[in-house]
C-alpha cells in the first residue's frame, strides 16, 4: 500500500515538474515573441499560475513521503524513541486534519464555481472548474497518502519495528538532511 502511494506520489510530482518546465519554456517564448514581434501569443502567465496551484497539491504527497515538510525538532530530538513516535503520529494526524480542512473547502469552492459557471477574469475566460478540479484532486490524494502513512506507521509500531516507523514518519533531522544534500552534491560531480 505504501509502495503504491509512493509510486502515485512520484508520478504526480513528475507530471507537475514537467509542467513547470513546460511553463518555463512557454514563458520564454512569450517574452521573446513580445520583444521581437510585439505580440502576446498566449496567456502564459495565467496558465502557469494554474500550474503552480496544481503543483502545490500534487507535490505535497511526495514531499510527505520524503519527509520534506519542515518540522522543528528541538524538543523531538531530546525525548526517548517511543515518545518520538507518538509525536510523529500527532504530527501526521494534525497534517491530515489541516489537509482535510483545505480539501473540504476547496471542493466546496469548486462546486460553487461549477454551479455558477465561473470563468477567469481574463481574455481567455478559462472555466474555473478545469484548473480547480485538478487542484482539488491533489488535495484529496494528499489526504489519502497522509492516511496511508499514518496506517503504515501504526502498523510498524504494533510490530515494534521502531526503525521502520522512523523511516516512514520521523523528523528528517538536520544531520540526515545535510547527509542527503551531500550525497546529492557528490553524485552530481
Amino acid at each position, binding site marked *: 500500500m505504501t509502495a503504491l502511494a509512493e509510486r502515485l506520489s512520484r508520478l504526480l*510530482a*513528475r507530471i*507537475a*515538474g514537467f509542467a*513547470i*518546465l513546460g*511553463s*518555463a*519554456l512557454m*514563458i*520564454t517564448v*512569450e*517574452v521573446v515573441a513580445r520583444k521581437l514581434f510585439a505580440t502576446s501569443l498566449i496567456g502564459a*502567465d*495565467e496558465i*502557469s*499560475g*494554474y500550474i*503552480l*496551484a496544481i*503543483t*502545490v497539491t*500534487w*507535490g*505535497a504527497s511526495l*514531499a510527505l513521503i520524503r519527509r*520534506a*515538510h*519542515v*518540522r*522543528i525538532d*528541538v*524538543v*523531538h530530538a531530546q525525548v526517548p524513541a517511543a515518545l518520538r513516535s507518538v509525536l510523529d503520529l*500527532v*504530527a501526521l494526524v*494534525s*497534517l491530515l*486534519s*489541516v489537509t482535510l*480542512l*483545505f480539501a*473540504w*473547502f*476547496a*471542493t*466546496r*469552492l*469548486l462546486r460553487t464555481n461549477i454551479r455558477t459557471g465561473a470563468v477567469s477574469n481574463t481574455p481567455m475566460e478559462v472555466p474555473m472548474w478545469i484548473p*480547480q478540479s485538478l487542484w482539488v484532486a491533489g488535495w484529496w490524494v494528499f489526504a489519502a497518502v497522509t492516511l496511508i502513512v499514518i496506517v503504515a506507521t501504526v502498523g510498524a509500531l504494533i510490530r515494534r519495528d521502531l526503525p521502520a516507523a522512523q523511516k516512514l514518519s520521523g523528523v528528517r533531522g*538536520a*544531520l540526515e*538532511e*545535510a547527509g542527503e*544534500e*551531500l550525497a*546529492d*552534491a557528490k553524485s*552530481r*560531480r
Partner: protein
Amino acid sequence: MLLTALLLLLALIALSLPIAAALGVLGVVLDRAYGFLPFYQAAGEVAWTNSSGFLLMAIPLFVLLGEIMLRSGIADAMYDALAKWLGWLPGGVMHANIGACSLFAATSGSSVATAATIGTVALPQIERHGYGPRLFLGTLAAGGTLGILIPPSVNMIIYGILTNSSVPQLYLAGIIPGLILAALFMAAIVAISILKPEVAGRRVRYTWSERLSGTLGVVPPALIFVLVIGSIYGGIATPTEAAALGVVGALGIAASRKRLTLRMITEAVEGTVVTTSMIMLIIVAAYFLNMILASIGLTTRLNEFVSALGLSPIEMLIAVVIFYIILGCFMETLSMMITTIPIIAPLMFSLGFDPIWYGVLMMILIETALITPPIGLNLYVVQGVRGQGPMSDVMMGALPFVVAMAVMIVLLAAFPGIATWLPNALLD
C-alpha cells in the same frame, strides 16, 4: 488573546508539528475561540488565490534554475578559477571559498545547496595546503549564506510577496550589502590569518596566463546572472519571466557540457516540485492564519500592544534584531520567515522603516540564523561534507563570520543608503 495565541503557536511548533499544519491548527482553534463567524470556511478561496499568482511562479522557476545549475557540473571549473585569482591573499584559497559561494549563490537561490556543492569541491584543499580546519569549514558555512542576499534569491521573492514590495527593487538593494558582506568575510580571513599564521595554510600563486585561461570557469554562472538580472533591469522581463529565461539558459549550459539527460531533468523537476510544494503549503497556511488573525482583531491588538510599549524606532529595531537572532538559533529559516514577516514587517513599516531596506536586513538576519548553533542548517551541511571530527569545529569556525554579520547589521542600520541607494538611483 495575544499571549494565548503566542503560547499555543510555540507549543504546536515544539510538538514538532509540520509548520504548515501548526499554522492551520492554530488558525482553526483561534477562529473557534474568538471568531464571531466561521472564517475558517474561507480556506478554499484563501488557498486558491494565494497559490495561483504569476509572481509566485517565480519560486518554482528559481528553484528549478538552481537544481539544473547544481547538476550542470560547473562548480569545479569555477572554484579553480577563483582559487587562481584569490589564492595569493593571506588565507589562500579560503578566499576562493567565499568567492565561489557568492558566485554560485548568484545563480542558485539556496544557501544549503550552495554550501554542499562548493564544500564538496573545496574540502580536499584543507589537507593539500595545510589549512586550520575550523576556519576553513567556517568560510564554507558562512559563504554559502550569501546565496539569499545576492540576487536572484528565492527568499527575497517570498519576502516581496509577503510584504507586497517590489522584487526588482529588493534584488538591486541586495547587491551592495552582499558585496560588502563578502568583503567583510574576506577581511576576517585576512585578519585571522595574520594573527594566527598557523591556521592560514599555504598561499598559492599562479601566473597571469594561468589565471586568464582559468577564468573561463566563471563564465557559465556569470552568463546566468546577466541573463536573469539584466533582463529584469533592461525592462524586458518581470522577475518570473527572468527566472524562466534563466531556466532555459541553464538548460543550454547543461547541454553544452553534455549533462542534459532525461534522468537529470527528471531529478531536477522532482526536487523542484518537492521544495515548491513544501514552501507553498507553509505560505498558504500562513495566509489562512493571517486572515483569521485579522478577522478576530488580533492584528489590531498586537499593533496597540506594541505602540503602548512606547519604544522608539531604534529600540524597536534592536528588539526585532535580537528576537530574530534568538529565534534563528532554533527555527528553520524558511518557516521562520513565513510565520513572522506578515506580522512583524507591517509594524516596522508603520514605525517608518523602508520596506526594501528592512527586506535586506531580514536577509542578513536569516543568513545569521543559518550559521548559529544549535539549528544552523549550513553548519550541518559543512560538517556532513567533512564527514569526520567534532561538530564544534564548524561552529567555532563560523563564529568570526557571525561577528562579521553583526557588523553588517550595524552598518546597515547606521547607513541605510547601503541598501536603498542603488534601487533609488536606478529605478526612479
